């Protein structure tokens, strides 16, 4: 929404503020100014001047030496390369030391304009410059009377020495606003002027709605029937005959230009002008093309095809509202007229339509037919039905004012349910306790009536009865009234306090607190935090070597994704981690240690009938220094920090993750439950991700970890009795794992077990084929006595028995 200050001043004549003051003030009352452009910012010392004489430059075949009367005692000599001027023309002249907005090529305007100084052109003095419309910062689009190439020439009889930019409407500032969806009324110059008037406490005047039309009755020419009144709460029509198509006057063209609308002709311009002024789009039909002289408003039938005035074929269905004549559609309601009823330059009689359509329907229909037009953008906000009548009358008044035709008397108005003002009864005291200030009912009334919310104060001095005109569709409850008061009282003037009442201790929810701790532990271990997208391409599951029937391939699909690459909710965090590691590898970051703490999304059933299981997942990954056991140590460190102590089991067989090296992967098991997995990335997957190094990952399923977190630490007395260590150097069959041996050592040592430590493993020539050599140090200790030789020997014997059963023997 772009609006000219000059236009606003037409309704708020007493307004006296700079564009900057306006910007700041209306922003603070809720009409947010996004940008403010001052049109004559870089136009300085530019006046109207009349060319008194022209002679050819002696040293040039295209330059002219002109003497120009700029209203000063002596004419000014200006050398120009323009060719479209003649003696007697009045043109904009920038004098020595003045400034113009840009070059005559109409290219991008320089921030600080172009300074014009007296100088010589091929030896002849020139004391200024005559300007084209482009040099003044605009274009032929908005000033169609300007020549394609050359000086802008004012109408004959224009006085010399005048402020030329002002004549062209450049003494103006254009504000661009962000209008919120609840303030449909502010999508209009009138709406913004009303807000501005209230902000600056100035009087606001609506344009006069003069009675228009001849003595005839439109009903003798046309009939209107609205079948689908749910989609069209009001339909008004008026007629104009004896139309004389012509350009609209300069003042109207300048207004349209200020809003970025190109002037076309008087009829089109009036329609656009009223749309900008009132926020009510209108449409005009060629009366002679309306078959049967009857308009019917109804839903289209499925499969209908209609050609709109831009000569596009549109496919329709029963949700789309059409304007029809006796034989068929002549327009898409609120979106675009039809080619078959289009106004052309030879139009004699026309029908103006100003209607109100259901906003949601227009929005959806416009999307369906694939064209969001200026008109539909207004209608989709849901217009006030009472606006239609004002707007159509205003348009007819302008037709008469511009002498563009003869307005037929009367108006057809199909308006079955009249929209009534909304009345809110509330208490001033409630408003005070909602906002936290202390205004009297009278003060509140004053603020409300500034914006035409008429207010009565009840006998109790507290009850307010506020009546909101129908253009304010957003006033329904006390809080709405409170906001209106607060806006004009000033948000800045509301006191600044803090909530009192309940003193609750702040905290992170328990799971979030665990996540935070885990993040910190991972960081202490050297992992930096990565952020990945939650959605990815289903193809990545092939890159990760998941078979067709893998559960991970059962993903939630987004029905309207940004593209295949963002189309399914991830069921595994691996792609994100490997992509990040790959990025680092390929950017030659020598090593990268990353972690991620985020959800994977596991559907309970597909298609989705209930919300999926969002599982918080810790993913650790690294390339560079380290191996499987580094990762294993990091995982255990993190879990230990969470108070998850004791022995973790690692199940290689049970870990079927296809993206991991089959000989270097394991599920992490605690207390019999799988809480995650770790491993080295499968060489094929490394290739798929272009990682030329080994990569290791570990994944913890946080919902399995949360219940294990234990902060209930209790002190164990420091040992009073000495420990005893025994070394076992053994010959172990290759298929027996360290885990199995440790199981035996721990179980057989029982309560006396303090520590079991592997200190040597060797596989190679010196060891019997099919065996490996392993050496363990076992530390025994009793809490309540010094161990006796008998006890120790007993334990050793038990250990040896156990080992023997696995085919393990002691090395001699």
């Amino acid at each position, binding site marked *: 929404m772009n609006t000219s200050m000059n236009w606003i001043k037409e309704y708020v004549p007493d307004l006296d503020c700079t564009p900057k003051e306006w910007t700041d003030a209306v922003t603070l009352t809720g009409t947010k100014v996004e940008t403010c452009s001052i049109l004559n910012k870089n136009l300085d010392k530019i006046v109207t001047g009349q060319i008194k004489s022209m002679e050819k430059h002696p040293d040039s075949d295209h330059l002219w030496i002109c003497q120009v009367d700029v209203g000063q005692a002596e004419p000014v000599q200006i050398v120009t390369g323009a060719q479209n001027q003649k003696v007697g023309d009045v043109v904009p002249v920038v004098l020595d030391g003045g400034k113009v907005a840009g070059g005559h090529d109409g290219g991008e305007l320089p921030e600080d304009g172009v300074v014009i100084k007296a100088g010589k052109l091929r030896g002849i003095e020139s004391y200024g410059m005559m300007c084209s419309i482009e040099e003044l910062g605009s274009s032929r689009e908005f000033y169609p009377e300007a020549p394609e190439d050359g000086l802008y020439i004012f109408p004959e009889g224009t006085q010399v020495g005048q402020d030329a930019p002002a004549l062209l409407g450049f003494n103006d500032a254009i504000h661009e606003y962000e209008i919120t969806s609840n303030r449909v009324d502010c999508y209009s110059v009138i709406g913004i002027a009303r807000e501005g008037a209230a902000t600056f406490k100035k009087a606001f005047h609506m344009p006069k709605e003069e009675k228009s039309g001849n003595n005839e009755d439109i009903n003798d020419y046309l009939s209107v029937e609205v079948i689908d009144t749910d989609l069209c709460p009001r339909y008004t029509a008026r007629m104009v005959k004896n139309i004389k198509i012509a350009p609209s006057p300069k003042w109207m063209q300048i207004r349209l230009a200020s809003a970025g609308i190109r002037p076309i002709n008087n009829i089109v311009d009036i329609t656009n002008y009223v749309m900008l002024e009132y926020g009510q789009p209108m449409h005009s039909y060629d009366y002679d093309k309306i078959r049967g002289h009857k308009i019917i408003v109804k839903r289209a039938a499925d499969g209908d095809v209609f050609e709109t005035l831009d000569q596009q074929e549109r496919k329709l269905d029963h949700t789309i509202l059409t304007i029809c004549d006796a034989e068929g559609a002549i327009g898409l309601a609120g979106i675009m007229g039809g080619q078959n009823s289009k106004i052309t330059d030879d139009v004699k009689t026309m029908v103006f339509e100003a209607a109100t359509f259901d906003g949601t329907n227009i929005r959806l229909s416009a999307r369906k037919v694939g064209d969001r037009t200026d008109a539909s953008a207004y209608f989709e906000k849901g217009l006030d039905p009472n606006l239609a009548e004002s707007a159509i009358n205003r348009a007819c008044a302008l037709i008469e004012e511009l002498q563009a035709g003869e307005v037929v008397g009367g108006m057809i108005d199909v308006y079955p349910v009249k929209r009534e003002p909304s009345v809110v009864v509330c208490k001033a005291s409630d408003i005070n306790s909602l906002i936290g200030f202390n205004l009297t009912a009278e003060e509140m009334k004053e603020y409300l009536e500034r914006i035409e919310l008429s207010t009565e104060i009840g006998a109790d001095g507290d009850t307010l009865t506020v009546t909101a005109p129908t253009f304010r569709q957003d006033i329904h409850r006390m809080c709405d009234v409170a906001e209106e008061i607060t806006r004009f009282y000033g948000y800045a003037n509301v006191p600044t306090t803090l909530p009192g009442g309940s003193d609750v201790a702040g*905290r992170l929810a328990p799971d979030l607190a665990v996540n935070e701790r885990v993040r910190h532990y991972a960081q202490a271990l050297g992992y930096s935090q990565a952020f990945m997208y939650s959605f990815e391409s289903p193809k990545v599951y092939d890159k990760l070597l998941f078979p067709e029937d893998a559960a991970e391939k059962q993903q939630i699909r987004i*029905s309207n994704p*940004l593209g295949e690459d963002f189309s399914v909710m991830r069921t595994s965090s691996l792609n994100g981690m490997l992509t990040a590691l790959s990025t680092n590898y390929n950017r030659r970051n020598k090593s990268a*240690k990353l972690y991620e703490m985020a959800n994977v999304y596991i559907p309970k059933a597909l298609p989705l009938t209930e919300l999926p299981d969002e599982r918080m997942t810790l993913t650790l990954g690294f390339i560079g220094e380290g191996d499987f056991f580094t990762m294993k140590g990091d995982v255990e460190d993190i879990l230990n920090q969470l108070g998850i102590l004791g022995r973790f089991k690692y199940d290689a067989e049970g870990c079927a993750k296809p993206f991991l090296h089959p000989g270097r992967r394991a599920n992490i098991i605690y207390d019999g439950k799988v809480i995650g997995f770790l491993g080295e990335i499968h060489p094929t997957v490394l290739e798929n991700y272009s990682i030329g190094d080994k990569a290791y990952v570990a994944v913890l399923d946080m919902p399995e970890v949360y219940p294990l977190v234990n902060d209930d630490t209790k002190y164990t007395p420091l040992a009073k009795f000495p420990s005893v260590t025994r070394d076992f150097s053994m010959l172990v069959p290759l298929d027996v794992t360290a885990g199995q041996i440790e199981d035996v050592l721990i179980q057989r040592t029982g309560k006396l077990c303090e520590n079991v430590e592997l200190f040597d493993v060797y596989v190679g020539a010196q060891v019997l084929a099919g065996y490996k050599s392993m050496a363990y140090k076992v530390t025994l200790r009793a809490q309540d006595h010094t161990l006796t030789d008998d006890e120790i020997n007993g334990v050793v014997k038990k250990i040896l028995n156990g080992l023997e059963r696995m085919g393990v023997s002691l090395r001699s």
Partner: protein
Amino acid sequence: MRVKHFESLMHGLCSSYIKPGVRNKGGTAIIRPCVIFMTQGFFYKEKEMENTKLEELKKLASDCIREAQDTNALNDIRVKFLGKKGEITSLLKSMKDLSPEEKPKFGQMVNAIRQEVEEELQKHMTELQEKAKEARMAAETIDVTLPAKKMAYGHAHPNTRALEEVEKIFVGMGYEVVEGPEVELDQYNFEKLNIPAGHPARDEQDTFYINENILLRTQTSSVQARVMEQGKLPIRMICPGRVFRSDAVDATHSPSFHQIEGLVIDKHVTFADLKGTLDTFAKELFGPETKTKLRPHHFPFTEPSAEVDVSCFKCGGKGCRFCKGEGWIEILGCGMVHPHVLEMCGIDPNEYQGFAFGVGLERIALLKYEIDDMRLLYENDTRFLNQF
């Protein structure tokens, strides 16, 4: 260690001594020949001589001590003079031949000397030890500008760093930090926030849908309704989390970003309280000089609503490139919870009221750390991450 030998001389001189500080192969100290008293017998001859002789013994010891070059030599001297079979100890042993009257006197004299020698020896010993320590330290001098050996700590993502700051501020004000689902029901993301089907706000938010009823939440406001529905009042919570909108990736947009929702519901919570809360928040986050400005705005689920600007923490509000010359930077949206929202969540708006606010986490992170391209946040390049 052993002392090689002494030649006993009745007139009281011995000539064999081993020079301290030089070691023979066996590791024993070689004692330089030196004049020494022999002790037996001469006391009988001339009593007045006794003092002199003792003095000489003492002087001899002192000379040896002074000449000793290291602690080993000193230890040898200690053994020679003060050891069980040392010179001075031997004098005491010879006392048995003295008369009962002479014994104590002689004993006292010897003990005095013994003590003096002991002290002198100890003193020199300390000096030598200090010297040795200094020499060792001199040899151990390092180049302190050589590189530090560091634990390679990992780094929090800038989002998390900003989030933890925000959480700390609100936890300090008594807020609970909670989370809600990212894949959400339409009713929580829209319906219960006063955004019924067909509401234009649904279009503005470019929602990703899974099906008609399930979507990827477009705002953490979805958690408001969930928390209110639980009916545990009063409420004072913030909810950080991931949200999704159908925006293509570029320097300022991402289809997935984060918000922090705040909600306070109590009996007497006012718009002024909201203002104060956000003012406190902004000052904590951006510095005590920060000013806040509320501008009226519209959100379907709050009324009155506001957008909040903070004074540019880069230029202090004068206007700079950072704040695009405005002096203010928009950071969040807020308002008083709409009574209809309260009603839909089973809370009586006549009894309870409250406020809600929503902050874009990336917006804060980008501002605070002056990151100019949002894509960096999802690239996970360690050269970027390690800066935080």
